[in-house]
């Protein structure tokens, strides 16, 4: 009975998320549609991070890098398509953008993962932060793509039959992508690989003793996770059409972690709940003051200090 209620509650949330923003848009309040689109995009990134953080116990403080890489995978080809140069890369084709994002995110995750995953605990956290910062400085250093000031593209990825310039279609693409990735990650966690991953999170030493190549499994999960966030980046780049290194700033990574941990790790709906809480908090607090980081920071400190066992207790489900 309780399970049915919970399941229907989740279903209710998803349906509301789909329907309400569109209704608000139709009655003239397009703000909520934009909010919901952004929410979906962040939730996809949170789903990606949850795969390795929630299910795998790998605490990455550098996942915003993939959002940035995905966004630039749209921005850079679009920039050349609009303004010339680098003809082999210049394109407006959405499928090409997605492919570039997936490949680049995958390679970045693979190469950095090779190094990071040789470490544990706080070393791992710091090294993921460092690599993310590396990506940040990389994009800052490239004058052609706006460096600090960012890249503005006034076109969106072209996908057949879909017009991303229409806010409703942009929202629907984001929403359906979110559902897709939630389902995909759910499948992965219920699979044999998923069982192994949760075994690794629980007791890595034992899993090695049982004969599993733990390093390789973590690396594969890490790459999957990066690719999902990279896809979210493609949507983000399309949504904002303003792509800047700020997307890779490590406080963005911190916000993603906040969403995953507070939303409920190792659950299907957790990342979405976390994204909802974060976006609402951000909206509410920033409507009170532009200095919303202050109450948000205090809230974070309070939760860490007063939550029994600390936030890290939320990690071991």
């Amino acid at each position, binding site marked *: 009975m309780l399970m049915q209620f919970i399941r229907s509650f989740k279903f209710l949330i998803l349906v509301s998320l789909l329907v309400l923003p569109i209704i608000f848009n139709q009655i003239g309040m397009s703000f909520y549609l934009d909010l919901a689109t952004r929410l979906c995009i962040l939730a996809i990134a949170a789903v990606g991070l949850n795969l390795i953080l929630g299910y795998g116990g790998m605490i990455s403080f550098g996942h915003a890098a993939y959002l940035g890489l995905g966004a630039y995978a749209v921005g850079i080809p679009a920039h050349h398509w609009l303004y010339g140069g680098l003809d082999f890369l210049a394109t407006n084709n959405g499928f090409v953008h997605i492919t570039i994002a997936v490949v680049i995110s995958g390679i970045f995750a693979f190469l950095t993962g090779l190094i990071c995953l040789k470490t544990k605990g706080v070393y791992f956290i*710091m090294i993921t932060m*460092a690599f993310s910062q590396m990506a940040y400085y990389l994009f800052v*250093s490239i004058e052609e793509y706006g460096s600090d000031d960012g890249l503005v593209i006034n076109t969106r990825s072209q996908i057949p039959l879909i017009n991303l310039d229409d806010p409703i279609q942009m929202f629907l693409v984001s929403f359906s992508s979110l559902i897709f990735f939630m389902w995909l990650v759910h499948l992965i966690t219920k699979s044999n690989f998923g069982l192994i991953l949760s075994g690794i999170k629980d007791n890595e030493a034992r899993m090695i003793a049982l004969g599993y190549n733990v390093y390789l499994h973590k690396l594969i999960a890490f790459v999957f996770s990066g690719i999902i966030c990279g896809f979210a980046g493609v949507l983000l780049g399309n949504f904002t059409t303003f792509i800047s290194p700020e997307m890779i700033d490590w*406080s963005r990574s911190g916000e993603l972690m906040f969403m995953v941990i507070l939303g409920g790790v190792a659950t299907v709906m957790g990342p979405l709940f976390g994204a909802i809480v974060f976006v609402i908090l951000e909206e509410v607090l920033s409507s009170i003051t532009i200095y919303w*980081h202050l109450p948000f920071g205090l809230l974070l400190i309070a939760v860490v200090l007063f939550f029994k066992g600390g*936030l890290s207790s939320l990690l071991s489900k």
Partner: protein
Amino acid sequence: MDYTLLLIQILNGIQLGVLLFLVASGLTLIFGILDFVNLAHGSIYMLGAFICASLTYELDSYLFAVILSLPIIAIIGYTFEIFLARPLYARDHLDHVLGTFGAILVIDTIAHLIWGPAGIAIPLPNYLDGQITISENIEVPTFRLLIIVVGLTAAFGLLWLVNFTKLGMLIRAGASNRTMVAALGIDVRTLFAIVFAIGATLAGIAGMLIAPITEASLGMGNNIIITAFVVIIVGGIGSVKGAFVAALLIGLIDTLGRSFLDDLFKVFMSTAAAENSAPAISSMSIYLMMALILSFKPKGLFPPRIR
């Protein structure tokens, strides 16, 4: 090859290294001895710069501003330890990270409220603003030499403190066996607060030293903290010696890379390719170096001895 430029850039590299050391040494001490990960260490560096800037204008003297800022930063560090760090010692490293991340948001916003969004420049007094002639072609700004001197003094001072004084002995003892030291009647909590204050002061000094060159600004803490983490990862967590070596290495690689990488690339690439790729690669250079060192020595150059 312009040797004058090379020498100047080497000096700049050493200067950057020394500043990184000031920040990283506090971080590695706090991590190595208190087992506490402090992301907000960079914010203290920023506060050092801003407080010194304000005081310079109030007192009309950079020197007095520095002298007055030091105890203020020490007190800030001490307070931070009591209210935020101490409750978190018993917790997981992840809680340290998230808690101090929250602290960064709070401190950065407060700084924004107090000092505004723009940076504050600190004018140098005349006697520090000049040049020193080293040889017929080479003139070096006095202040940069001063930074190097101050940094090296701090480095040796710290090494002396930790290895040759009673306080240092207590610190090292408290790190390896807290309970025992407490049983001997030493107030470990105050001891740790002192360590924290020392680390904070060092970071503050770094901020005060860099501000006349780059001005005090809101983002400076967040920029330096990651580099400081790279330093302590490469140097080995808890090792002051490692922080020193790694800081100099990183300072030199970063500075020399930015200046000379395009020249190096031109040796085997076209000029256009060199000039396009060099800025990007040099911005990544210290991270690439970190990756390289970690693949051979995953615990850094001077890894901590297992307690």
